[in-house]
């Protein structure tokens, strides 16, 4: 079925909204009433229709608007895309994976035709119809990784594997939750997770690294991460902190429903075939509290989760200033009834 792509903004007038159908497919990340750190990885396999797991690379009603926002971010700051020279193989691997998955999942919107190394890519929502030679950079308007990630929702990091570690050596990062590719590029797994509190002590990163080093081709894996953002702003980079940081002081009991957004990252991890690198796809979903409480189970669970957060996390996720107001507003929708296990609406 064709997706009705929305025209909306993630800045200035913030016209981004979720349709009722899109709310019901939102990947609510909490499977119980309290939040605990865990490695929480599971196989990234196709799941039920009508959820974000229906396809392995998800495309939704925000696709066209997100790609437009990415273009604006890159125009202002080209360093949001970077790839070190030894990652060219991995760039082509990524282009192939994203084209294949989008064309398989959404044949009415994307078509990939392969004739040996001569490929034709048709992207109808963005009006693109290009023919190029796979492996020959000169046949594309820009590097293959940049080319395809200007046409795919989410942030993308490609990490090289060597010396028993993973190195962030390429990325397209324009929708991040307060971290910077320009700062992290060239760092290894432990270095770029340096600032995360609690998880290091719990050994979470040691276990996660070990798991990822053995990630297998043909067996992608996924996990959730989450935070909260004021206003539906995709680009919450450190570079633009002066724009989004002050937003956090603007939350009042009256505007929680519209302003406070749950920001969910569905991260999928793929072993790439030609380069043996790993592709991290960090797909960001935003939903405001007014939309969230239209699902009764989530309306009950959300304030309970926020109440049980350890202080270090409240601080790290930047929730300090508006957590109280948000819990108070949400509590009206918590009737005290038990919630069912799992993340899906009842």
């Amino acid at each position, binding site marked *: 079925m064709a997706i009705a792509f929305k025209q909306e903004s993630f800045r200035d007038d913030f016209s981004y909204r979720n349709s009722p159908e899109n709310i019901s497919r939102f990947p609510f990340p909490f499977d119980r009433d309290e939040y605990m750190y865990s490695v929480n990885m599971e196989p990234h396999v196709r799941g039920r229709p009508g959820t974000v797991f229906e396809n392995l690379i998800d495309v939704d009603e925000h696709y066209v608007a997100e790609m437009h926002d990415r273009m604006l971010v890159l125009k202002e700051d080209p360093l949001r895309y970077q790839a070190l020279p030894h990652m060219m193989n991995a760039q082509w691997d990524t282009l192939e994976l994203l084209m294949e998955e989008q064309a398989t999942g959404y044949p009415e919107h994307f078509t990939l035709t392969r004739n040996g190394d001569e490929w034709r890519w048709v992207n109808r929502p963005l009006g693109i119809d290009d023919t190029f030679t796979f492996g020959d950079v000169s046949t594309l308007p820009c590097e293959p990784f940049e080319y395809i990630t200007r046409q795919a929702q989410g942030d993308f990091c490609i990490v090289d594997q060597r010396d028993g570690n993973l190195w962030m050596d390429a990325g397209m990062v324009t929708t991040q939750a307060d971290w910077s590719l320009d700062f992290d590029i060239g760092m290894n797994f432990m270095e770029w997770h340096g600032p995360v509190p609690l998880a290091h002590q719990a050994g979470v990163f040691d276990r996660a690294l070990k798991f990822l080093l053995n990630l297998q*081709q043909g067996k992608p894996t996924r996990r959730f991460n989450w935070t909260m953002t004021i206003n539906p702003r995709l680009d919450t980079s450190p570079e633009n902190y002066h724009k989004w940081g002050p937003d956090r002081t603007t939350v009042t009991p009256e505007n929680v429903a519209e302003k406070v957004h749950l920001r969910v990252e569905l991260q999928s991890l793929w072993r790439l075939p*030609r380069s043996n690198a790993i592709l991290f796809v960090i797909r960001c979903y935003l939903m405001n509290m007014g939309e969230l409480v239209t699902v009764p189970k989530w309306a009950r669970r959300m304030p309970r989760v926020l109440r049980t957060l350890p202080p270090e996390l409240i601080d790290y996720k930047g929730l300090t200033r508006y957590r109280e107001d948000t819990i108070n507003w949400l509590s009206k929708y918590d009737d005290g009834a038990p919630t069912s296990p799992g993340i899906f609406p009842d």
Partner: protein
Amino acid sequence: MSGGREIPVRVTKVTPVAERIKRFRFERLDGKPLPYFSGGAHVIVSMNDFGHIRRNAYSLMSPPHDCAAYEISVLHVEGSRGGSTFMHERVKEGDEMNVSYPVNLFQPDWRARKHLLIAGGIGITPFMAMMEQFTREGANFELHYAMRTRDRSAYWKELAERYGSQRIKIYCDAEGMTMPLDRLLDSQLLGTHLYVCGPSGMIDGVLRAGMEAGWPEQNLHSERFLSSLPGKPFTVELVRSGKTVRVGHHESMLEAIEAAGVDASFLCRGGACGQCETEVVNCDGKLLHHDVYLNDEEKAAGRKVMICVSRFEGKTLHLDL
């Protein structure tokens, strides 16, 4: 989770290559292309030996960009535990088998200014795929290939023809030739990465020489597949599944555990990758660690064991499986 995903294939060609070496070509049963892979990758080949499943890792030697088929070469090992004998004596063209998705534990460092490849005997196979990939990508490489005799060694003639005598150097023991390792190590371009694959003694020697010549450890790469050594039979108790498993003289713990119907995870089955790391719940006796994954401290602590290659001598061993 057990091993990598498996792909049903047919053996479409068996070619004798040299004394005791055969090449096998696999194509997918469903006629589709096989997954791409990177030079240095291996697959696990599953052999159905009258209902007993043997699984061995073999380096992929076919060009990585050619997904019509996978090719491996198998040396018939003297004193084989069964895998190489099975491949040599039982596998015929037309047979159906399973191979895993490729796994690469010997990935070239893509940053290298130059790749210096050192092969001994059947250790040539991962380099065949690497050299194809380097050529396609215009990377600088050089192969030094040591062998006992020419008639017992594979592919030296083809390689010399394909890449030329500037890139391919052959050293034949029987003809009194030795690899000038020290000179090689001293004369490389800054940013060269060295890769060695061959008999264990050779790998140790090359790595030691590299360190002594002042090479950074990160620029020295090796791949050795250890096979599970034979030893005295013993018994393992699996705490979670409640099973008692007898490990035979020629069997590995992993094989015996799989035969008992318990799913254990693995990737390389050669003591290198760490995937089959298993918690030791209780151990009254001596663990015989044969892997290269755990460090000396971990081996001495005795709380973990790599069940693909390690053994046990003593009274009781309880594993968290």
